[in-house]
């Protein structure tokens, strides 16, 4: 709901006619990723907090391997993010009259960026689950972790929009590498967070 509200607000406020053609690739990419990242931050932080609040976290700790719990939560967050992207991206393209020169690169960037976003937010969600000021802490911890991914994803979408220098899809590669590194690091780090 947050994502749709933001998207509608953006499209009504600065709709396609107010932005010059030269600025469109960059500004549209920035706006799209701002909507995606902030929607993800508002929803994905709940994955471990919900277990903590429901009191099910201890029984989960006693039953499952930490890595299995992490991968389960990651899969859930990626599914949620996938559903969010499936709704938001087509709506954004439609409402903003977003013309994409290289749809393949654009789709790959959205998917790989989404995977990176899911991996980054899942481990931060685990870190903040037992803290008191969860909302603020989630934003503070996510910011440095997600910033490189956001810059990469914006650049990749900008490239896909204007269709210039698309060979090799370097931003997609960076996002895929970011996701792999984040998942491997999280699998090592998560058991330490999972214990008291």
């Amino acid at each position, binding site marked *: 709901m947050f994502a749709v509200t933001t998207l509608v607000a953006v499209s009504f406020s600065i709709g396609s006619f107010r932005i010059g053609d030269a600025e469109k690739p960059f500004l549209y990419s920035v706006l799209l990723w701002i909507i995606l990242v902030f929607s993800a931050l508002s929803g994905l932080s709940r994955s471990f907090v919900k277990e903590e609040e429901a*009191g*099910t976290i*201890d029984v989960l700790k006693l*039953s499952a391997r930490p890595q299995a719990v992490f991968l389960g939560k990651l899969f859930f967050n990626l599914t949620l993010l996938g559903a969010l992207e499936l709704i938001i991206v087509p709506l954004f393209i439609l409402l903003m009259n977003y013309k994409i020169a290289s749809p393949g690169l654009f789709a790959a960037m959205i998917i790989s960026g989404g995977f990176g976003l899911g991996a980054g937010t899942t481990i931060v969600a685990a870190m903040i689950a037992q803290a008191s000021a969860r909302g603020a802490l989630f934003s503070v911890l996510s910011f440095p972790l997600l910033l490189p991914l956001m810059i990469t994803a914006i650049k990749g979408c900008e490239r896909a929009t204007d269709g210039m220098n698309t060979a090799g899809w370097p931003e997609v590669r960076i996002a895929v590498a970011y996701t792999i590194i984040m998942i491997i690091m999280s699998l090592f780090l998560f058991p330490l967070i999972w*214990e008291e």
Partner: protein
Amino acid sequence: MYSLKVSKICKHYAGTLLFKDISFELRPGEVLAITGWNGSGKSTLLRIIAGLVRPSLGKVEMFMEDEPIPKESRRKFLGMVAPALALYDELTALENMEFFCKVRGIAYDRENSLKIMERVGLTENATKTCRKYSSGMKQRLKLVQALLHNPPLLLLDEPGCNLDSNGMKIVEDIILEHRQLGMTVIASNEKREVAYADRAINLSE
């Protein structure tokens, strides 16, 4: 054969000493009671044994045929019931059992789950979501969850909590039956529950 060794456990909480130098050994067939006033640390000691809380000092070891079981594998060998341990309210009792079987990596057998539920008097409510359960029914379901994988170590924190006399009888039967299989640690002040223990540790002393 399994055994449990607790050595010189000490726990500080928020700068206050909760308990210190708690040591005991437990062998199959033994039942230990941990007693003490509210806030004396009974539940914390049980959580330390389960590996949910780190002790400030000391260590907990579990052995299988005198070989130490790594801490990260200990969860496979213990079942725990505690007021703070909640099950998934949005799932039915059977779905909860299926979930816990799957995350524990054991095959889910609906018939076996129904048999265990019959033992605690929950068969008729097995397909109801746990949200609709009374606190006593939830406590019975927690007992099922703890026994699902036949653990050699059973940790019972206030096992009679919210239970009526029928429920208390079930807990007693479980303690007696588990005596044949493994070790039991009960944290409680209820005389009826403590009566089944071979020995007791009073944390208030």
